[in-house]
Every structure is written in structure tokens, then in C-alpha cells.
């Protein structure tokens, strides 16, 4: 059974002139790392809120279709129940953190589940360690940098042992080094613990190399869904107003100019592929000489 299943989802906010999402179909298997992108206003944030049940339970509005998280339909189960299977991280840490210390912040979730103290402690220790912030345990979240705050937000969700983490532009307000650090942590979590990751991100060059799938939203519906190389190298994707990685733009020009056949997602891949094609050309050349 897929861990996430979205069928014929359409949604309009209350008093809104039109739908923010229409006809959205989406599935995710446990352990997938899915990169979601699309121009501003395309429905990405609305989609994230639908995944954890905030829509329609908190937002109201006109909700049609189905969102099923680990077998639970979001229209039939409270957000508190869905939240134990799917955690949501937002853009702005200011809106997420509220405790006086990192430790308390991270312990908040399991404390509210009335778990035994030893279990809470072990979950907190593990979460802090997996995100690399054990040394920040005693600090107040207010003293931390944006990147550190987002890591605290992620750790706070990990103590709930979610099967899915949904992150809505978590690096939007972070400097590039912190952003890379957060994405690396997500990739590590995905690899080690098989947590399904749904990451909404504009900086595709940073996240695409880690992703199994790239989903593009355009005007409230999904226009592309597939392996990142398939999606980013497909025709017409340039016109969507998303940030196509420079390496993809270069590879497309080299394809036209040199017959380059690779579809790299990083400069390392481009370099390796160019070297591969060069070696092949040399071998072919030597065979022709013989």
C-alpha cells in the first residue's frame, strides 16, 4: 500500500473565487524522496496542508477527492492522528518553535503522547543526534540561526517517529550553506531510516541529485511527475517559470552543439559524463584507425 495516496483532489479556500487545487492525483511509496516544485501560487503550500489534514480540518473550504496517509483518510481522522504519521515543516522557523529550550521543544510531541520518561529521553537523544544538533540541547531556540532552528523543527517531528516528512520550502529563509546542510540531513534520514520525504523547494540544483522523483505543480495541478532527469530534461519545462539548474541548461545546449547525450543533474555528473563520452570517442577513433 502506498504511504501517501491523493485521488482527484480539488480544493478552494473559503470565499475564494476559484480552486487552488484541481484534479490532483499523487502516490508515494514508503522510502521515496520526492522533490516538489512549481511557480509561486501554483498550489504547493495548499497541497502540503492537504497532506497532513490541516486542509480541510482547520481551513474549511470546499474539499473534494481523497487524501490517505498510511491508510488514514484525512477527512475521517483528526489532524492529531495524521500528525503522528506525517510531520510538516514550514518555511519560517518563527512560526514553528515555541519552547524555551531545544530539548523541551523536541520532547513536546512524545510528552503529549504520555510516553514513559525513558522512551521520551531516548527519542529526544536519537532525534537530536540524527539531525546533528545534540550540542544545542540546552539552548533557547531564539538564540539559534535560521538553519539551526529548522533542524530543531525537524528533530521535533522525528520524535513522533513519522513515516513521512513534508517540508514546505524549509530552506527559503536560510543561507546556502545552511540550506545544503538541511537537505543533506533529509537525504541521510531518507537513506538510513527510509522516512518518506516530500520536499517543496525552488533550489532544484541543490535537491534534485538526492530525489527519486520530481513533481511539478502548475496552476493548481500536477504537470510533471517522474525521475528528476526525465522531468527536468523534458520539453516545455523551461516555460514553467521554475529554476532549471544551470547544469541542465548547459547539457541541453551541448546536446544540440556536440551531440552530448548525458542528462546530468550536478556538475560532477556532467564532468564524468563528458569524460565518458570523450573516452568512448577515443576508443571509436582508435577502432576506426585500425
Amino acid at each position: 500500500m502506498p504511504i501517501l495516496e491523493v485521488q482527484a483532489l480539488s480544493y478552494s479556500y473559503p470565499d475564494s473565487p476559484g480552486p487552488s487545487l484541481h484534479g490532483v492525483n499523487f502516490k508515494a511509496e514508503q522510502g521515496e524522496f520526492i522533490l516538489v516544485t512549481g511557480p509561486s501560487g501554483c498550489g504547493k503550500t495548499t497541497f502540503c496542508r492537504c497532506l497532513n489534514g490541516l486542509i480541510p480540518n482547520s481551513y474549511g473550504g470546499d474539499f473534494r477527492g481523497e487524501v490517505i496517509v498510511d491508510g488514514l483518510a484525512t477527512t475521517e481522522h483528526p489532524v492529531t492522528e495524521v500528525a503522528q504519521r506525517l510531520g510538516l515543516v514550514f518555511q519560517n522557523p518563527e512560526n514553528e518553535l515555541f519552547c524555551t529550550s531545544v530539548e523541551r521543544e523536541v520532547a513536546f510531541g512524545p510528552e503529549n503522547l504520555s510516553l514513559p520518561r525513558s522512551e521520551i529521553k531516548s527519542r529526544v537523544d536519537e532525534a537530536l543526534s540524527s539531525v546533528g544538533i545534540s550540542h544545542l540541547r540546552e539552548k533557547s531556540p531564539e538564540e539559534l540561526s535560521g538553519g539551526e532552528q529548522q533542524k530543531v523543527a525537524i528533530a521535533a517531528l522525528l520524535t513522533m517517529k513519522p513515516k513521512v516528512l513534508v517540508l514546505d520550502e524549509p530552506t527559503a529563509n536560510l543561507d546556502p550553506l545552511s540550506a545544503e546542510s538541511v537537505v543533506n540531513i533529509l537525504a541521510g534520514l531518507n537513506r538510513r531510516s527510509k522516512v518518506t520525504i516530500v520536499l517543496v523547494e525552488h533550489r532544484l540544483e541543490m535537491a534534485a541529485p538526492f530525489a527519486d522523483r520530481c513533481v511539478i505543480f502548475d496552476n493548481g495541478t500536477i504537470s510533471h511527475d517522474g525521475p528528476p532527469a526525465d522531468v527536468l530534461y523534458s520539453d516545455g519545462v523551461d516555460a514553467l517559470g521554475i529554476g532549471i539548474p544551470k547544469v541542465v541548461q548547459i547539457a541541453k545546449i551541448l546536446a544540440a552543439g556536440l551531440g552530448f547525450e548525458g542528462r546530468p543533474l550536478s556538475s560532477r555528473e556532467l564532468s564524468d559524463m563528458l569524460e565518458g563520452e570523450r573516452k568512448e570517442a577515443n576508443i571509436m577513433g582508435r577502432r576506426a584507425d585500425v
Partner: protein
Amino acid sequence: MISFEGVYYSYSDRPGESALDNINLKIEDGALIAILGENGAGKTTLIKHINGLLKPQRGRVVVDEVDTKKTTVASMARKVGLVFQNPDHQLFAETVEKELSFAPVNFGLPPEEVNKMVEWALREFALLPYRDRPPFLLSGGERKRLALASVLCYSPQILILDEPTTGQDSGQKVRLASLFRRLNAEGRTVIVVTHDMEFVADFIPNVVLLSHGHLLAEGPAREILVKKELLENSSLTPPQLVELSWDLGLESPSLSLEEVVSAIMKREGSGT
């Protein structure tokens, strides 16, 4: 012109630490410039000196021949518009229209002029459908556009933007860059504090690099953003094309897509 002359500044809760350490910098009228540096480098401290929110403890900042220590923030605000990184720290009115008209009304612009500016802003920033809507009901990206629009409504001579591209898609960044060029063409100065190296590489001709309160470098982006050591010393990630140039071992790293492609084609074509 904006001129920093031997400026030193440290915050009262961190007296031993220089937030700005002997800054000497001139920004000409009509410049389009990015202030770059790691977190804590002094970028925000620097820009707060331009509109007089902060005054230097040593040295002086002169904006259009006026020493910021000898004038009020209110009078500086007429000339220097500052757009915050988080629009929610700036927006406060009941409707989008009231937000846009607040500053020009308070600066005493005549009603026809205010209406003209408001109508222009609503169209320019695609906010017409939201005229009567409370700002907090707009999406994050729309609130960011509104914050910028509300500052431009009183036509400041100098526009400073703190992280204007966060949460904006590539289409919006292109439009933002085009707006900056139009403001420059009118002789207005645009200063952008940003971590968005791609935006700088693609659209901003000049940069200032700060690190730990020091001015490390200033000049054309195409010369500065290709220097590995300088970027490493400022804890900055290189623009994609520069990183590509280094990874591919190209002789002349560049910010230009055409130049990088050309260099690759030349090398691959020659079979070396």
C-alpha cells in the same frame, strides 16, 4: 552618493565584537549592488547605517551630502526606502490599498499623486485583485511583493532590499531584476542584501563582500564571484556556473552561460 568613511560599530550587548570594522565604501547614484556575506558578517548592520537607524560609533556615513549623525531617521526615510526580509514585520494596514497609500499620504503627497502611485503599484505587482483584501490573507510571495510595492509608492531615491528573492519563483526574480534596471535608469540606487548567489550572478553587476565586519572586496560581480579563496573566506557558496567551471577544470571560470558553454565546446571539440 552614499559614503562610508572609516565606520566602526559594535552592538551594546557584544561590546568586544566589531559588527562593522573600518568600513570605507562609496556607492554611486544609480548603482545596482549586492551586499554579500555569511550570517553575522555585518550586512544588516551596514544597511541600517544608510537610513540612519544606526549611527557609526567612529567615522561617518554621508548620504547625498548629509551626515546621518546630523539628521533624523524620519528625514532619511524619505530618501532611503528599506524593504524588510520578512514582510510580516512591515505590513500592518487593513487593506492592500491602505498599505500602499500610507507612506505617500504621510509624506504629504497630494491625493492625485497618491492615487497614481497606488494604481501603478497594484498593476505593477499584480495586486489589483487584492485591493480591498487584508494583507495577511495574501500568500507569502504576494505579501513580499506588497511590502516592496508599499516602499516604492513613495519613490525613494535609494532602495534597500533585505533578501528580496526568498520564496520567489524564477519568473518573479526576472521581473524583480527588470524593475531594478528601470529604477537605475531613473537614477535611483538599488542595494540588495542577499544570499541568493544565482540571482546576483544573473542580474546584479556589482558586489560588496563582508566578513566578520570587514570589507573583503568590492567591485564587478564577474570579477569577484569567480575567486575561490575570496568566496571561501566569506563562507559563500559559489554561483552554479562558477562551481561548474571549477569542477570541469575550465581555464576561465565565468558567470555567463554562453562563456561556459563556449569553453566546454572548445575543449570537447579539440578532443583534449
